[in-house]
């Protein structure tokens, strides 16, 4: 069964908190918090996150999707992943 938006968001948030924001208050990272433009994700953490999402959901990202337009927030990431999952 396909993961829901909320589940994808939660998994992504868990990964970001563990890998990039250890010790931070998880409540501060909302679904709309800007990740790239807000400086939470840089190039290294971005490619790590992409690797995590690709492995977990067995999807593939295109290079142009690694941008502020597509992965700047948890909600945007979840929507993109779900779109890929739906597309099969």
């Amino acid at each position: 069964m396909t993961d829901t938006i909320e589940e994808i968001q939660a998994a992504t948030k868990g990964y970001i908190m563990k890998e990039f924001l250890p010790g931070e208050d998880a409540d501060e990272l909302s679904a709309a918090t800007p990740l790239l433009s807000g400086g939470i994700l840089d190039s290294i953490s971005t490619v790590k996150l992409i690797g995590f999402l690709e492995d977990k959901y067995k999807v593939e990202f295109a290079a142009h999707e690694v941008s502020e337009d597509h992965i700047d927030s948890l909600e945007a990431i979840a929507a993109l992943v779900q779109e890929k999952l739906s597309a099969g």
Partner: protein
Amino acid sequence: MAGRGAGAKEETTTEELSVGKLLGIALQLALVLAVVHTFGIAAGRGLNELTVLIFVGFLAHALAPARLRLPIFLVVSLVGFALVLGVFHAAILVGLGLSLIGICHLPLPHLARCLLLVVAGAVLAVVRSPAITTEWETRVMPILGGIFMFRLMIYMYDLRNEPAGVTLWQRLGYFFLLPNVILPLFPIVDYRAYLRSLKNPDRLAVYHRGVELLLRGSVHTLLYRIIYQELSMPTASIQDLGSLVLFMVSSYTLYLRVSGLFHIVIGMLCLFGYDLPKTMDNYFLAGGFNDLWRRMNIYWKDFMMKLFYYPLFMRLRKKGPTMALVVSTVFVFYASWGLHTYQTWWVSGYLRVTAMDGWFWTIFAAAVLTNTLLEAKFGRRRAPIKQRRIPIGIALVRSLKTVGMFIAMCSIWSFWIGESPSDFFSLLAQAGNSGPMEFVWLVLGIAGVVAIGVVGQIAFSLGLRVHPVTYAGKTGYTLATTAGLLLLSATVLQREDTHRYLAAVMKEGLNQRDQELMIRGYYEDILVDRSLLGEIADAQSERPATWLDLDQTDAVRRTGDLLDLELRPDYEIEFKESLLHTNRWGMRDKDYSREKPAGTFRIGLLGGSIELGSGLEDGDVYSALVEELLGEGFEILNFAVPGYSLIEAVVSNERKALDFDLDVCIYATHFPGLNIVTSNLRALVENEVPLVYEELEAVVRKARLEPGMSAQQVTRALRPKNREWPMKDLLAWGYGRIVEDCRARGVVPVWLLVPLPEDQQSTPGIDVMRRIAKEAGFLTLELTHTAVYGDRDPESLVLRPWDRHPNAEASRLLADALHGILLENSEALGLDPSGAR
């Protein structure tokens, strides 16, 4: 200020704009533009011509309904292009630009359109080459290149995945951005970021940010001027730890010019509603190489990540993330080097690939890669989402990292602008001339900066801010800063006794060192991509490719000896847009007989390009004018050749001048005289030319000069600190030889100091030159700057912005002054045709 791209708020309509706040922003903008105008910020680039347009355009844009705002911006941009370039050139620019945009939208496959753009780019690149020089090309191509050289790449990349609903106005607006006309070396605005920038509904906040950025850019520019005019120094004058530190810090901090201009550019765009991201983010505070890469020229970093790093990484990631990371990172830096060279071509018309650039990018790539691998393995401490008090230990580590990074960048930058790695290491060795106390002071100074960093971070984490964050706070800051600067310009800066550091904020143009370089025609050597935004690059930007130095023409021939070159006899050439003739003796002069006519008083003049009258008509050369002023019975024979200095004067006097039965022989020199002697001796050693004179060989031995030494190394070897100068031996030999040769023929030897229009202050070597000239037995005559040029604007007395030789007017002033001083000294000179030998 509202965050960029914030939420789903409805756009503020014109009616909803707070009129009070808009007027407040307009008032602040007027004050900031007054500062820009008063201090001539980027005036040489045309910003002064745009200030009224910016203000009027801003008001029109702010008050217009949403559907008209993009067209208004486009109209303002086109008017701006016409104001700075002229209507004709602006029309060419827009025509070529529209053609390129048209190619992007041809009904062809994406790849075919890309190939067509490459072909069009290649044709334009040929037009940009120095071989093709037209006025329109010189004016239009740098701007056209600035607009399209990178933005077309991004545009085509994004066109494949473009969001729906992009309008024609948006497309045109992306390319025809108003500030492009003042800055070809434009921050690479990303197409998607540009489209997003139009979505911020809080227009007042965006406008206010524009005012702030304009002011910040202006302040950066003023700080840059102080560093450039007063602290920046030639490497040759570094002779101890203090001057070394000053040189290294000033080399790196000159980057303020770039950040200043970039802030101004983005500020201008914010005034028209484009809420673009930051171009720079407190780059002097970077705590590591990766951090610097993320903070300095952010648009460049984003461009490289988008078009090169991510596509390559995504392609390689299946082969292992570490390998993909390494290859992508290294590729990005070498591609950056290549693209900087490509950019240099479009902006300057030169294609320069230097070893030092290679070293620079390799060092930077290695440092970032190391940092990247460490971060990939161990992670990176990020700024907390929520600000809280920072522990002193963390603050100390950060402060140490920041200061360490600043020192590293000062070192790398100083290395980069040097001539070779050995040049840099010889520079570092100068610190050895200092005593232990100087090192102690340096360590204490660094410790002090670290301590300030710790205190600053803790204060910041407790909520204390240097930069105001509220609308009222920002407004107060803007009003206070602009009012302070305007008051300063109207009071303190008007006084003649204002401290030179303060007075430097008003100076736009070349500092003393760069003026000398321009006189010596060395600009091509330093016009590499790293100096594209330097003052010399500015001055050279309009120089036609046909504007050559004489040694680049057939008017000279190589001698292969100490002279290196001489003028061809009986030659005529159009040189720097004037006619230059030589007589049968290879002199730029009338056709004098070798034997002096009876009843004639004959003066010979030895000198370089100034005496030759570089860029002047034959009749405007100052020696010719003085001859006219002296009247019948006087002849002045001009033996000057461009590039000649002391060594060449000795040879030329012996081989040529003294055969012309002279009564007086004038050796003309200038404030940069020592530098030219140094440079010429270096060339002789480099080319292993036989030095002929034993004394000259002794100087070379004493200074331990050898081929391969950089100009700075040779200078320091000839003028070392705390030791006797071998240069003094050189002067004593050269001056003594001229005097001796002249006296042997009964000729009065004269040492003449000729000021240049931009010589505002004496150089350290001049006292030495004067003393040794007197000791050698010269009659020393000096034309002072005030006596020659009075309070004339130096800019009105030079040939062209890109060529600082005296123009015809300056030559006339020089002739008047020289005529006067010759008459004053007529007795000592025996200035009397009837009594001539």
